[in-house]
């Protein structure tokens, strides 16, 4: 019991999530039940993947505003490679494999550009990713002349609903992303470097951290995560769209923040981000089930972001607080 209490005091957002779930299950009709639980899972997964990528960047005290444009570009690239209208490949399996590779590459390349601009060109991350956001959103719209791409292979569009051992494919994707991220952050040298860079650039440089590659690496991770999120969005909407995901930016950053990861870098955990993303998903879902208008949901989300920040502020500080 003591250890649970200690765990919750260190990971308060997890407790908040559980509390919120229980309360909603009691109060909101239709919230508790297998149907809506799957619904929550489906809505949670892409947000989680995007937020994990963002967590990497924020841990180094950076920020990636360009993720929504990466989602759009990846969706368009994947859509073009896979659509029967372009008919590039005959075998569906090869089509999907090439499409996914193309999407991940697109995300990685934009991440690389962001990373190089932040490190080699020494530009502020906020401005780099802001101009990336404007540029690549515009690029996706220009490339497609604003037209959506459809006629995607059934292999892809059915994937979100296919199951393996009782669990839908996207669950495995999210699990894999989480596991790999967890291992990188906690079991590797790179993970140590990421926290070190975020905590103090100077001392980490003195202690031999390769700062440039570490920062480039986190932006690439963020780009790849964004393209994986784009994969799920594209598959479940059965459309490659240049405006895909254009409104998720604030939800993603909000999820990381209410998780408790510090925008100054060096402090944060994956499970916080996961809980933050889950809370965001539950907020949308539950308030929606209550018939609340989207603008009221916006007010509530804003209030929650503020309150959680306030709450984190008055938490017993861990040793490494910013």
């Amino acid at each position, binding site marked *: 019991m003591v250890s649970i209490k200690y765990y919750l005091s260190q990971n308060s957002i997890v407790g908040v999530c559980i509390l919120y779930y229980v309360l909603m299950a009691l109060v909101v009709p239709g919230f508790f039940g297998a149907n809506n639980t799957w619904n929550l899972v489906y809505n949670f997964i892409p947000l989680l993947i995007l937020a994990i990528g963002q967590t990497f960047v924020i841990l180094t005290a950076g920020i990636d505003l360009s993720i929504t444009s990466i989602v759009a570009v990846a969706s368009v690239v994947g859509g073009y490679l896979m659509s029967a209208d372009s008919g590039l490949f005959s075998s569906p399996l090869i089509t999907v494999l090439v499409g996914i590779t193309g999407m991940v590459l697109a995300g990685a390349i934009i991440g690389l550009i962001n990373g190089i*601009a932040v490190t080699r060109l*020494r530009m*502020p991350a906020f*401005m780099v990713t802001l*101009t990336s956001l404007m540029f690549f959103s515009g690029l996706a719209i220009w490339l497609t002349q604003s037209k959506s791409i459809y006629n995607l292979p059934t292999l892809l569009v059915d994937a979100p609903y296919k199951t393996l051992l009782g669990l839908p494919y996207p669950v495995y994707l999210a699990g894999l992303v989480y596991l790999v991220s967890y291992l990188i952050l906690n079991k590797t040298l790179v993970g140590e470097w990421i926290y070190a860079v975020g905590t103090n650039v100077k001392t980490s440089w003195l202690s031999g951290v390769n700062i440039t590659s570490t920062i480039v690496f986190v932006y690439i991770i963020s780009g790849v995560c964004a393209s994986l999120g784009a994969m799920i969005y594209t598959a479940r909407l059965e459309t490659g769209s240049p405006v895909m995901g254009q409104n998720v930016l604030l939800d993603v950053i909000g999820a990381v923040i209410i998780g408790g990861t510090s925008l100054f870098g060096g402090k944060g955990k994956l499970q916080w981000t996961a809980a933050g993303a889950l809370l965001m998903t539950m907020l949308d879902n539950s308030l929606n089930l209550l018939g609340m208008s989207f603008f009221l949901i*916006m007010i509530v989300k804003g209030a929650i972001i503020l309150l959680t*920040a306030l709450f984190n502020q008055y938490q017993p500080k861990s040793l490494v607080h910013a």
Partner: protein
Amino acid sequence: MSTLPLNISRKAAEHSTLLLLILVVVLFGSLGEGFLTMRNFVNILIQVSGLTIVAAGMTLVLITAGIDLSVGSIMFLAGVVSGKLVDGGLSIWLAMPAILLVGAGMGFVNGLSIVRFRIIPFIVTLATLYMGRGLGLYISETRAVNLPDSFLAIGSLKIMGIPLPVIIMVAVLLVLHLLLTRTPFGRQLYAIGNSRVKSEKAGIRVSSLLLKVYVISGLCAAIGGFVAIAQLGAVSPSFGSQSEFTAIAAAVLGGTSLFGGRGAVFPGTFIGALLIQTIQNGLVIINADPYLYPLITASLIFFIVLIDSRHR
């Protein structure tokens, strides 16, 4: 102290933006008929007035190493409130204080959360971005608020031949410029931006100063929003969305640092805003492919920030 390199880099940044502005003017002037006319020049000045006012307030915030993401929502909220008040029979001159009150109020909430509860500006203003827009949509019931003609009359009013929006812009620029360069308040803002800890040790009342800065930013956002809607004649539900990014871009183009301690309202931010607006104006005049606008604007901003970073 390191004022010398700071000075040089500021000069360089201002000049690179100014040089680019001249280049853009020459380019559009040679490409498009009707660009290099007095009328169009006045036109650009009127169009840029709203953005400049918002960006000027943002500049002060950035100088303290803060950020205000909520300005777009404040513009919207102030517009909706004033529209509703005037629709409800209030005279436009009485609605004016209400606009200022909304701006100052939102700014106060931002400032108070930042100094009293010590939440970082990015999070506070992200939250108020959500809340302000949500509140505005709630009041407007998500409809576009069509304003009475008295608003448009103010927007096209001229005093001694000078359009009112330009006069308001010049007034705001002048006040903030003097505040930054001629008063202890201004000098203390730079000090806070350079090092908050040292400023506190030096006896500067950081909290009270920061609170004032966010109130000023909120006020500027509300005034800028008013100037913009007085020309539009309506407040659409998307009014002001992403304006925070444009305002930040204008300030940064003008040589203001996102890390604080460096920046100027005039000529800096004014030139930055002018560059953004001139590009938009020129692209329409030469009838460019509409899809290319964001690509060109983004590339130019990237380029300027790059030059600025090289000089640092």
